[in-house]
């Protein structure tokens, strides 16, 4: 049986693909609850990571003519990523619509960079949303104090901030999917 091709780092020169427009998921005319998501990415030495490719994907709101659900951003000289998108709503759990579990609103986030041999995946949740206690992903994370590393806070109206640490005392929880 064929085996999935191995990952290799995206390296420092992936910007040859980069198109700044891709960080705005509303660019095809999406309307609704528009939010900005931003944050810094730091390494285990406290250094800002200025060469990362950050991608987000959300299954809610559903993909449409005006909303593709996908965005890509480069971290800037201050190690910061920023997206403009629509705020997601709750989603069915891992068993699909037939199951009875529900997921709190979330966006999947991937970090690709020099020094990462394969993608790092995590999620963005929104502080104050209902359903965090029973969310099938958040509730897997132990100790519970680490769950906060996935929860963005509204730092200005409609601007949600989630800083990410790849390594160290407050290391972000990453997911194997």
């Amino acid at each position, binding site marked *: 049986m064929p085996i999935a091709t191995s990952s290799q780092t995206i390296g*420092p020169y992936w910007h040859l693909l980069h198109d700044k427009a891709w960080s705005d998921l509303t660019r095809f005319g999406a309307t609704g609850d528009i939010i900005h998501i931003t944050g810094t990415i730091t390494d285990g030495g406290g250094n800002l990571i200025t060469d990362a490719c950050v991608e987000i994907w959300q299954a809610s709101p559903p993909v449409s003519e005006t909303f593709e659900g996908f965005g890509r951003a480069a971290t800037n000289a201050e190690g910061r990523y920023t997206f403009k998108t629509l705020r997601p709503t709750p989603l069915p759990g891992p068993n699909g619509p037939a199951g009875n579990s529900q997921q709190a609103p979330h966006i999947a986030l991937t970090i690709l960079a020099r020094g990462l041999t394969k993608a790092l995946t995590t999620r963005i949740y929104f502080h104050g949303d209902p359903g965090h206690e029973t969310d099938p992903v958040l509730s897997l994370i132990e100790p519970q104090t680490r769950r906060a590393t996935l929860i963005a806070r509204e730092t200005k109206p409609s601007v949600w901030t989630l800083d990410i640490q*790849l390594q160290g005392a407050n290391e972000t929880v990453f997911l194997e999917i």
Partner: protein
Amino acid sequence: MSAPNLTPFRPEIAGTQPDYAANIYGSTALRAPRHAPVRIAQSITETTGPQFRQDRYPGNPDISKVPTGEAQGQRIVVEGHVRDEDGKPVPHTMIELWQANSCGRYHHEGDQHDAPLDQHFQGSGRVFTNAEGKYRYTTIKPGAYPWRNHHNAWRPNHIHYSLFGPGFATRLITQMYFEGDPLLKYDPIYNCIPDEAARTRLVASFELGLTEPEWALGYRFDIILRGRSATPFENDQTPAHAHAHAHDHGNH
């Protein structure tokens, strides 16, 4: 619209993917997380993923030239199939490509290697697989270049690939290498992959049948994306270490 396919994708085969931490690759030291990732059951967020329309993301299958001229170097065509782990073609999926020019220099401000830039080389491209999962593009064979991972470190010739596939969980970033490259055995990035057979699958083979007479050499590079589990709606909560029992990373 048809209902989304919510069947989860199969877990990785032990040893076929690099670990995050790799002593031989210096940049991993401060970037690889110390905690093991938390294994989750896949939901609609992971089993579906972005799809790219060719009217919004037009293909660019010949990066060996620009309107004002042709790039320096050995012109090559690269062809291959994108399939899943069941051998089924992955049709109409987007592939992004980027690479150094024939002298081993990227058209990127971060690349200060003392080798010439080539104004006629595009450096990146985009192709889509056809209905049979086949892709093909034309480029220039990239040059090797030095980097500072260790004394006298050189990257082998390689072309970077980015694929999405049918779900968020099938995202793949990889590099295609060239058959017979003497630098492969010294390259920490290539050798981060524990399984030798898996490494070898990243090496494109020269194929005379793909060569365009009097025009370009031909290489074949096939890609496999994760396949969906045989059991629909499987809610697999098995800890990652139970799947990884066959791991032996001791030599890497």
